[in-house]
């Protein structure tokens, strides 16, 4: 039985718990995963630039003994005008064991899944979900905190355009988090849309009594100048620096970090035991191994 990995919202709590536990098990011993993808072929299709997610998925597959075939979108038939429907039909006819897909359109993996029986693994779709990021975040939280239930978490950044925030809206429901969002008002969803998260009214409150702060990358290129006047203004009013960063709170970031925008270099370089960014990347490989196992080996 194959399974898709489209979004956290399509998973049950025990699925997510299994994914986290599996990743942690893999991290402890390579014997646990070494040959699990032997003779398996995974196709990756990335329509959007990505360094760490793509590399992470590739390394995860290779460490499990699988083969990766990478579709270069720029040279593919899609670029020549083939429809997405035809592409997925044709690629499926070659019988790979899974597709890892990143696309700038929300719902793209969901769309593909309607036309193929081969597992679709969502490596980030538009502004909808980034479920493997959510799993690796959970792995990291479990590691440092020893639990996932009832955490106090605040996500700071462009929530409206964040797939990470949306995936965590789902994990927050599963694990009964006290989740909140903060950022410029132009980047916040309407309160009535999100019953499971509250919107903080100032940075001080956003940072107060949290187990984890997740910072998001601020991108000026999306509607530049309309949601946000400048990165400088963001750093000043929404960025974390040595003066405002709480000592007891873990800081996370899906990367890549804009140094001195959402997080000051000083905090990044000097607050090593509370800043989990590198640990997240490390856990990303194990989280993605767990995803492969979930989708391909069931």
């Amino acid at each position: 039985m194959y399974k898709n990995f489209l979004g956290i919202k399509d998973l049950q709590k025990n699925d997510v718990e299994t994914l986290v536990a599996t990743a942690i098990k893999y991290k402890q011993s390579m014997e646990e995963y070494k040959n699990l993808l032997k003779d398996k072929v995974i196709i990756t299709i990335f329509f959007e630039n990505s360094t760490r997610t793509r590399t992470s998925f590739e390394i995860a597959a290779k460490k499990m003994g699988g083969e990766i075939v990478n579709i270069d979108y720029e040279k593919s038939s899609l670029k020549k005008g083939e429809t997405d429907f035809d592409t997925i039909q044709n690629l499926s006819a070659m019988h790979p064991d899974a597709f890892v897909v990143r696309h700038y359109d929300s719902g793209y993996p969901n769309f593909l899944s309607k036309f193929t029986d081969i597992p679709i693994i969502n490596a980030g779709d538009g502004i909808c979900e980034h479920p493997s990021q959510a799993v690796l975040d959970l792995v990291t939280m479990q590691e440092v905190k020893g639990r996932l239930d009832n955490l106090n978490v605040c996500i700071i950044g462009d929530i409206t355009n964040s797939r990470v925030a949306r995936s965590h809206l789902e994990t927050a429901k599963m694990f009964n988090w006290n989740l909140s969002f903060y950022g410029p008002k132009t980047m916040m969803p309407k309160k009535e849309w999100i019953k499971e998260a509250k919107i903080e009214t100032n940075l001080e409150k956003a940072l107060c009594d949290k187990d984890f702060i997740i910072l998001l990358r601020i991108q000026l290129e999306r509607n530049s100048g309309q949601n946000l006047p400048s990165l400088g203004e963001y750093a000043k009013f929404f960025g974390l620096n040595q003066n405002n960063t709480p000592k007891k709170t873990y800081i996370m970031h899906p990367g890549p970090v804009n140094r001195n925008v959402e997080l000051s270099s000083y905090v990044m370089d000097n607050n090593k035991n509370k800043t989990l960014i590198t640990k997240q990347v490390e856990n990303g490989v194990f989280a993605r191994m767990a995803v492969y196992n979930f989708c391909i080996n069931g």
Partner: protein
Amino acid sequence: MRIVIRNAYTIAPSSSFEGFADIAIKDGYIEMVGDVVGISIDKEIDATGLVAAPGFVDVHVHLRDPGFTQKETIETGLQAAVKGGFTTVFCMPNTKPVIDNVQTVEYIKNKAKMLDICDLYPIGAISKNEDGKELSDMLSLHKAGCVAFSDDGVPVMNAELLRKALIYSEDLNVPLTLHEEDKNISADGVVNECETAFRLGLKGIPNVSESSIIARDIEIARSTDAHLHICHVSAKESIEVLRKAKLDGNNVTFEVMPHHFSLTDKEIEGYNTYAKVNPPLRGESDVEAVQSAIASGIVDAIATDHAPHDEDSKRCTMQKAAFGISGFETAFAVVNTYLVEKGIIGLADAVNFMTYKPAKTFNLDAGSIDEGKYANIVLIDKNRQWNVDRFKFVSKGKNTPYHGKKLKGLIVKTFYRGKEVYQGERDGFV
């Protein structure tokens, strides 16, 4: 040749008549409405249990011909129209080429004339190629047969161009019918700005992108003597703006669409591209506001915005999917199911919104059952329930969010100038 339709419950909105009557049709014209006795009859149709109404008038459709004939042709479009009970339709100019030149008007008119199953009136473009830059040859287009002007599909963002278009066409006595959407606000939005859209990660089109530009255009029109008609009003704020403008005596009219008073933005769940339409399906309070506007009588027309698309245009992600719903073949049933059956308006009023009212709004002699007029008549089984099956559409556009939904009210026969141009199924119907 004399045909008599017997015993239909007849609705004649122009004279506010409704009741059982016979209708005698002679040589394409309505000869008599009432008790038809003592004359020779060539053909008799027993319409016991059916409603007879004027053929419907749709002031807003897309027939895609010329240019996009993979989506629809004038033939398939008009066949779908008569299946839906329409005998008068106005086609929007976003064809290829755009209806901004006399040849295209002639092409459309000739094709419809040869088919001879439904009146088809082209709407000319306000600006050349609908580019919003230069006025089209509005006087020539009007002379060639355009009954209104619109850049439908896109808004006229340039306020001065709109003002000049209104003034230039003042003496033609035809409305400018506007697609209202402030593009700066709606930008790359694909569905209503709402919780569902947020959850799905889809960019929203907020209500204010519609209502704010309607308010702007009412002010612009007020400074002229022109008639402004607002297309497919979807937001409660827009209705409020229009209600006030009408109270103030402005020369402004507006239409609403079946999908905007029957479906909410919840339909987009699961990235349902068939529910992608512009203006988008809105929230529940907007749907209720459109219904209230209809009930209060301030609405001037119910139109379909029939927007057929080929399968590939919808078999893709929400972002890539084309906007639009194939509307002809469900229009009456949706009106009947969601307005009449729910007690929001009576059947006679519903018929009026689909016939006489829109015709009057566009100064057209149509949409009535009166002696001496063309016999454009539709026979309806208003109690017949049916499941919408998009694959049974006559239109090339099988794109409907009503697929699989149960509706009540079915078109049984459509007469165009006395000729039976559509014959549907009816149990035991002869």
